[in-house]
């Protein structure tokens, strides 16, 4: 990590080529191709169990594909130096906060472990990022004292501290009330506009997807069914996509 954390404010691109992954006999990803452009907000939608989280775990390097490859700014993530060269962050579906640390310690963990800032500066940054996600009073709390939605917001603050060039959100609004969802959606937008971070958002929240996505892909059973601008996806006549996007409660008459 040679360049200082504040100079490089350009998002990085992600390319996924022919990504395949099986778990045992179950084929979860069956050849995924997608391109996320630098600075883009790319939303990935799809029913539960379609492999969205597994795809994100591959992109951040937690899993190894059976076939295909992933390029970050044109470089294979197999290269050892990619993790050091680019700053990437993932907001896990469950938050994945360290339960033995306070909220503030969780948010400051990256800076502290990598010795990037002095303790005073870390404290200031932690307070600032917690304020961004509307949790400035929660700094001393333990994760077990937070609701699911609050945990997720702390996880977002923890990702912001990294000043990432690529940020992966796994269902950022799935446990939030509608108002908080809007706040998080606006936060994703603001962050993208302010520092040009590339954002890959997994969500089945249709309002969020069509509200913030520059482009949207719908994934179904390990394959991409439709990909395009929000309008293109809305107009798609792919049956599964239509079902997924236009599904609604039918009241019993």
């Amino acid at each position: 990590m040679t360049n200082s954390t504040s100079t490089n404010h350009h998002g990085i691109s992600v390319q996924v080529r022919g990504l395949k992954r099986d778990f045992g006999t179950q084929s979860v990803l069956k050849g995924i191709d997608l391109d996320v452009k630098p600075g883009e907000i790319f939303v990935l939608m799809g029913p539960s169990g379609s492999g969205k989280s597994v795809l994100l775990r591959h992109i951040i390097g937690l899993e190894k594909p059976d076939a295909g490859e992933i390029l970050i700014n044109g470089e294979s993530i197999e290269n050892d130096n990619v993790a050091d060269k680019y700053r990437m962050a993932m907001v896990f579906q469950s938050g994945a906060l360290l339960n033995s640390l306070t909220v503030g310690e969780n948010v400051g963990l990256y800076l502290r472990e990598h010795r990037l800032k002095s303790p005073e500066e870390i404290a200031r940054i932690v307070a600032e990022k917690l304020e961004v996600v509307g949790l400035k009073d929660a700094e001393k709390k333990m994760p077990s004292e937070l609701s699911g939605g609050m945990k997720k917001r702390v996880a977002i603050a923890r990702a912001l501290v990294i000043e990432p060039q690529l940020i992966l959100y796994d269902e950022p609004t799935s446990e939030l009330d509608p108002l908080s969802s809007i706040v998080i959606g606006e936060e994703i937008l603001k962050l993208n506009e302010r520092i040009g971070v590339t954002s890959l958002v997994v969500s089945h929240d249709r309002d969020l997807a069509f509200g913030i996505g520059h482009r949207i892909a719908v994934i179904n059973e390990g394959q991409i069914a439709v990909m395009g601008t929000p309008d293109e996806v809305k107009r798609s006549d792919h049956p599964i996509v239509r079902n997924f996007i236009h599904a609604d409660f039918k009241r019993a008459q």
Partner: protein
Amino acid sequence: MFQNIGEMVLLFWRTLRALPQVWRQREKVFEQFFEIGNASLLMVAVLSFFIGGVLALQTGPTMVERGLTNFVSGLVGISMARELAPIMMAILIAGRIGSAMAAEIGSMRVYQEIDALRTMNINPVNYLVLPRLIAITFALPMLVTFAILVGWLGGAVVAKATPAIDIPIQSFFESMKIMIDLRDVANGVFKSWCFAWIIGIVSCHQVLVTRGGPRGIGRSVTKAVVNSIVLIVMFDYVLTRLLLE
């Protein structure tokens, strides 16, 4: 089983390679060290006092009857130092501390905390395994030294209080001093140092293997404790054999 041993050797190697990082992690080492002491000091004292006592009780009357009064304390002292303190304390710590480590790290894996560390470019071996391993390799030998002393005291008290033995405390220790030298104690402490590595590696190995959600944690805790104990007893034989030469 063999795959596990391979993974453990690998983890051991990765921890050794991380050793230069230990100074950075010193706060966590101290934290773990005091946690181990806190959790086990009283149990170690009680356990070793009674082990020393029961040794005197089992051997004392027979030896006194055959005119070997001077050898009672030596027997208690040597068995305590060379064998019983190291092995019993290692088993106790495997149950008390090894299980806690396995549970904590196993749940961190299941709840994706370890994944989160990896996405932040924080090496889980440096962050989690190293401090625990260093703390236990200091703590266990110290606890064993303490256990040897308390065990001797237990033997002395029981030897005095049992009418069929009835050795005054002072002469118990005087005749013990003749039979025991520092090598016996060093021997036991060295063994416990090796046992500490076993407990640490076997328990932290869960970083790599816990699967199957929260129920997997219970299984890996049990496995960590049982495997530690089996390995400790096997290594005990090997080390004793080597140290006899």
